[in-house]
């Protein structure tokens, strides 16, 4: 997209739009998150219905598109209850604490470029609210604050199921944040910057003329392993199935939001989808090339469209995983986080550093072979464990220390 630096709106004189880009980006990112939540909830219900061979929403609006709006209106008219003995302040603040970090984290997310015609010639500018030097750390900081909303909701409601949900949320967030952070450090190491625009810029271009130079395709497959670690940790961070232990309805009623009704419940619901959109946006920027086109001949399409397409593809993966996989047992969830993901992420980080330092691709291949061999060995051990009649699979053994 190319625009002029000075525009004239009616009687108002020429306005320099370059300083206005951050504000326009702010409106765009908040608008995108809040509006697409409506669409994404509809999408999730349609995807689940397709997987489970049923019709899904089909009454309100064309193809049920207005179902989410109908649900919002219904929730708006529900009675707003507060359980007796609830901690009043925390109970009221908790939904906001889920929502605010999700919206604020969009501030350092670059979602495209815009070319501005200046006197010095055309100049590409990133579409981002605040292009800060520690952009990815800012997003990680807000993601780590988001768990307070869940924990406080669980604690303040004065309900044992809520409390259990909140405790699980805290333990799970801490465990998977580690693996996620190590994977993010790998991306930072590959890109050589903490600034998200620099990370995305580094992924422009194509290997052999067709394979996009995204982080997930770099370092001879190690980038792909780190990407998968980030994606798994991302699902766990947003408390989505199969990692939705904080709200496991088969054992905890509705987990941390059992006692919430009306719009407070709606805010938890929307906050979950908003944080899903944000972590998908971060995944796009870190691993899948941000606003860059996947193939050279598709570069004529504006970058922000590619960004939205990639975010929606990751959201679809979220829903697909939810429809496909059963919920994990709690000790297995902890064991996977601490005993599989963190060691794997550390090995990948060290291997990427070694390949980078010695310029030796053989290290990457050796690491990948070792990872595959270790997975086969662990799988074989787990299968032997179940065949001998033991109820505990290998992922559950000795998990008491981690939980």
């Amino acid at each position: 997209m190319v625009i002029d630096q000075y525009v004239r709106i009616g009687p108002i004189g020429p306005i320099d739009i370059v300083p206005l880009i951050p504000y326009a980006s702010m409106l765009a990112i908040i608008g995108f998150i809040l509006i697409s939540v409506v669409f994404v909830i509809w999408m999730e219900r349609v995807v689940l219905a397709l997987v489970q061979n049923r019709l899904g929403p089909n009454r309100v609006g064309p193809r049920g598109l207005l179902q989410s709006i109908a649900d919002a209106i219904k929730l708006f008219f529900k009675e707003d209850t507060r359980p007796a003995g609830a901690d009043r302040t925390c109970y009221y603040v908790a939904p906001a604490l889920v929502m605010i970090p999700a919206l604020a984290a969009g501030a350092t997310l670059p979602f495209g470029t815009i070319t501005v015609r200046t006197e010095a010639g055309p100049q590409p500018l990133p579409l981002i609210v605040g292009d800060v030097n520690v952009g990815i750390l800012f997003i990680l900081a807000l993601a780590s604050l988001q768990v307070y909303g869940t924990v406080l909701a669980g604690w303040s409601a004065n309900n044992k199921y809520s409390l259990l949900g909140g405790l699980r949320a805290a333990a799970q967030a801490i465990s998977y944040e580690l693996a996620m952070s190590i994977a993010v450090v790998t991306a930072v190491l590959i890109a050589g910057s903490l600034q998200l625009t620099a990370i995305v810029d580094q992924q422009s271009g194509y290997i052999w003329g067709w394979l996009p130079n995204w982080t997930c395709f770099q370092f001879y497959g190690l980038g792909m392993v780190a990407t998968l670690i980030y994606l798994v940790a991302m699902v766990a961070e947003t408390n989505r199935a199969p990692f939705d232990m904080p709200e496991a309805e088969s054992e905890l009623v509705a987990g941390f939001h059992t006692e919430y009704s009306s719009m407070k419940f709606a805010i938890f619901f929307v906050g979950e989808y908003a944080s899903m959109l944000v972590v998908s946006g971060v995944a796009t920027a870190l691993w899948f090339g941000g606003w860059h086109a996947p193939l050279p001949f598709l570069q004529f399409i504006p970058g922000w469209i590619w960004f939205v397409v990639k975010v929606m593809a990751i959201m679809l993966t979220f829903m697909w995983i939810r429809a496909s996989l059963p919920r994990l047992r709690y000790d297995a969830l902890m064991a996977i986080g601490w005993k599989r993901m963190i060691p794997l992420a550390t090995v990948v980080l060290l291997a990427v550093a070694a390949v980078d330092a010695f310029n030796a691709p053989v290290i990457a291949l050796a690491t990948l072979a070792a990872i595959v061999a270790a997975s086969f060995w662990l799988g074989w051990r787990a299968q032997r464990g179940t065949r001998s009649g033991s109820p505990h699979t290998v992922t559950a053994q000795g998990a008491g220390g981690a939980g």
Partner: protein
Amino acid sequence: MSAQMVLFAVLATLSVVTAILVVVHRNPVRSALSLVCNLIVLAVLYLTLSAQFVAAIQIIVYAGAIMVLFLFTVMLLNLGAPEALRETGRVQGVVGVALGLSFLAAILGAGTISAGLGPSAATEESLRTGGTAEAIGRHMFEPGLPWHFAFELTSVLLLVGIVGAVVLAKRRL
């Protein structure tokens, strides 16, 4: 009064108020939450000093990780009964007030000394780039600067802590 002074006044007041609330609250969860607020306000104060990297790390490590663990432990032990936690001894109060006053004196002394040093040598350029991750990394790992040793020593200290935790938690290795 400039805008910066107003911002500093607001943040300083908030940080002091939240710090006092940590001690005053009877409910341990409320105390922990006040401490979280305090840490976040301190991070914003770092930001006004253009130390963006330190601010982000402050939130990630202290507000995001350590305080979640605090809160987790408080909730797990369910320390909701304030009567059981009430301090009965007089000695703690006296010692606490004395320590607080001496700390205040130390801070005031440091403030007077730094006020006597005159204006800082920071330029606009050094303010803009001094707080970035690159600048801190260069400063810490530049050959010839003495920070390597302290850095490695800190990692050894953390390792000792981890080993200690494992030994304490696992009776049988």
